[in-house]
C-alpha cells in the first residue's frame, strides 16, 4: 500500500503503565536533584578512653618528676560529645558547617549560585534553578506528568 501518493508516519507508542512509570521516574529524578547535601551530625571519631586519658596524665607526671617539659594539663583535643546510647566521640558537623559558612562569607555569589539549585534546607523553598522552577513542556504522548 505505498506509492499511491499517500504519506507514512512514525509514532512512539508504549503501554500506558510504562509511560506512567517513565514519567514518574523522571519526575522523581527532577525532585531529588533539588535535594541538597545532607550532613551527618553523628559521631565520626571515637573519643579517648579514660584509660588513655590516665596514661596521658601519667606521662605528664613522669616527665615532671624528671624535670622534662609536660603538657601542663592542657588538652589538645576538644571535649568529646556524649551521643545517644552513651557513645563518646567527636562529630565533624561543626567543621563542615564552619567550612560552609566560610564559603558563604568569602564567596557569597558562588554560594548563592550553589544554593539556587536546591531547596532551602530550613524553609523548603525551591531554589531558583531547581527544575521545578523552570518548567518545560513534556513531549510525551500524555502531555503531562502522571501519578501526582
Amino acid at each position, binding site marked *: 500500500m505505498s506509492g499511491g501518493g499517500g*504519506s507514512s508516519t512514525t509514532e512512539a507508542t508504549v503501554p500506558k503503565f510504562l509511560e506512567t512509570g517513565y514519567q514518574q521516574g523522571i519526575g522523581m529524578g527532577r525532585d531529588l536533584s533539588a*535535594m541538597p*547535601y545532607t*550532613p551527618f551530625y553523628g559521631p565520626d571519631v571515637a573519643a579517648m578512653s579514660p584509660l588513655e586519658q590516665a596514661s596521658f596524665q601519667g606521662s605528664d607526671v613522669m616527665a615532671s618528676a624528671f624535670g622534662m617539659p609536660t603538657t601542663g*594539663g592542657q588538652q589538645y583535643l576538644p571535649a568529646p560529645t556524649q551521643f545517644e546510647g552513651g557513645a563518646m566521640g567527636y562529630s*565533624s558537623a*561543626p567543621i563542615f558547617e564552619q567550612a560552609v559558612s566560610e564559603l558563604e562569607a568569602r564567596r557569597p555569589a558562588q554560594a548563592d549560585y550553589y544554593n539556587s539549585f536546591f531547596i532551602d534546607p530550613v524553609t523548603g523553598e525551591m531554589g531558583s534553578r531547581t527544575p521545578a522552577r523552570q518548567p518545560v513542556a513534556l513531549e510525551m504522548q500524555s502531555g503531562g506528568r502522571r501519578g501526582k
Partner: protein
Amino acid sequence: MAGGANPQMAANPYQQASGAQQAALATTQQGLGFTPMGITPESYQAGQIAGTNLSPYTNPYETQVVQQSMRDIGTQAQLGMNQLDAQAQQARAFGGSRHGVAMGEAMKGYTQQMADTATRMRQQGYNTALGLAGQDVAAQTAANQYAAGQRASAQSQNLAAQQAAMGTRLGAAQQMAGLGGQSFGYGQAIQQQQMQQGQQQRQMMQDLINAGKQQYAGYTGAPQQGLATFLGAMSGVPNLQGQQQGYNAGFLDYLMAAGQFA
C-alpha cells in the same frame, strides 16, 4: 603547648647525662695521665767512733782518783821507809850503806808501783769511755737505719694509697658514665612515650578533620550528584522513535482502489 618542667628537679635526664659524661671523661682523662709518685731510695749515715769526742764518756773525777791512789801509795811508802829506818836503828845500821841501799830499793819499788797504778787506771778509764762511745754510736746507727726504713715504708704506702685513690676515682667515673647513660635512656623513653601519645592525639584530630573534609566534598559535589540523579532517571527511558508505523492513503491510492473494484 608544652608546659614547664618541674622546678624542684635540679636537672633533667639529659642534663644529668651530659654532666655525668663530662665528669667521667675528665676523670678518665686524669687517669690516663696518672703518673705514680717515684720512690726515692733512702740512705742513712752509719756512726763511727773515729773522730768522736770521748770526753763526755770519761770519769770527770779520774784525775782525783789517780792522785788519791798516788797519795795512798806515797803514804804506804812513807810507812815502809819509817819501818825500814826503825829496823836499821835496831840493827845499828841506820845511815849506813846497807841502810841506803835498802832505802833506795824500797823507794824504787814504791815509785814503780805508783807508775803502774796510774797507767792502769788511765787505761781503764780510756777503755770505759771507748766502750760507752761505741754503744752510743751503735744506738745512733740503729736509729738512723730505723728512720730510713720508716721513710721508705712511708713512700711505699703513699704510692699504694695514690694508686688506690686513682683506681677508686676511675671506678666512680665508670659508674657515673653508666648512670649518665641510664639518665639518657630515661629521657629518651619519656620523650618517646610523649611523642607516641602526641601522634595518637594528632591522628584523632586528623581523622576528625578528614571527616569534615569528606562532608564538605559531599556538599560541593551535591550539584553534580543531583544532575547525575536526574540524568540517571532519564537514562531508563527507551527511544521509542519508529516503534509503530502508520500510512495515510493519497488520491492515487483511492483511484487505484476504485479501479480494482470496477
